[in-house]
């Protein structure tokens, strides 16, 4: 069942334009720091799209982890490589990459529009955090534990890679 609320519909179009426009600017701008700022704008647009899908917890996670943690990590990587080129406009295989990306987008979009999805009329979620917590600790408890091990491994690996001695 599609969403008819005019506020949500307007929010969808504005947030989609923000997200895709930000992503396009990441590809277009010349300065790497500016590209990074547009990437954060795109992440926040995706967080807003999650809100229009009534996924409130995921939206907060998106802002905290993508627009917060991963963005700061990227900024540190840019700042820690001061002698490297800040020029974001250097590209290789520009035309083939653009053609391939356009073909991929067209194919996925055509398949998405053409398929008759088994739509549900359950409406928006009233609340997701409690249900998500139950899902993570009941059917997904093994992946949940593996994810914690993965985070520890990644953290130790990152420290080992940049340690100076």
């Amino acid at each position, binding site marked *: 069942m599609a*969403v008819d609320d005019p506020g949500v519909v307007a929010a969808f179009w504005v947030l989609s334009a923000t997200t895709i426009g930000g992503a396009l600017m990441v590809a277009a701008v010349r300065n790497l720091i500016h590209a*990074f700022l547009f990437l954060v704008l795109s992440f926040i647009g995706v967080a807003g799209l999650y809100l229009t899908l009534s996924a409130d917890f995921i939206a907060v996670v998106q802002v905290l982890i993508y627009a917060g943690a991963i963005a700061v*990590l990227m900024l540190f990587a840019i700042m820690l490589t001061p002698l490297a080129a800040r020029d974001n406009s250097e*590209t290789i295989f520009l035309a083939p990459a653009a053609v391939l990306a356009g073909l991929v987008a067209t194919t996925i979009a055509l398949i998405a529009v053409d398929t008759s999805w088994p*739509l549900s009329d359950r409406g928006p979620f009233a609340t997701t955090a409690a249900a998500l917590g139950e899902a993570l600790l009941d059917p997904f408890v093994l992946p949940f534990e593996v994810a914690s091990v993965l985070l520890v491994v*990644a953290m130790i690996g990152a420290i080992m*890679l940049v340690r100076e001695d």
Partner: protein
Amino acid sequence: MSVGLEHYLVVGAILFSIGLFLVLAKRNAVGILMGVELMLNAANLTLVAFSRFIESPRPIDGQAFTVFVVTVAAAEASVALALIVAIYRVRQTIDVDRINILRW
């Protein structure tokens, strides 16, 4: 005018293809990483959209997958950026075209 599943899937497809373009075309390693993050975001967006619109006995599962994707993305970003900094210390560049000491 209403917004349905297809709208979100098309936005996800466009976002994914922009990320794919960045990965293929950029020469700066951080720019490539930005493309990877955009692709993961597009996948997350479609997962959450499916969880909202598709008939299922456990509709919240799509959002649980998204939590795992975000976890893996955070781990991937930290290791990738550590690799970039480590390569920079040796080569003073993060241009992937110039990191070619294995080429004969």
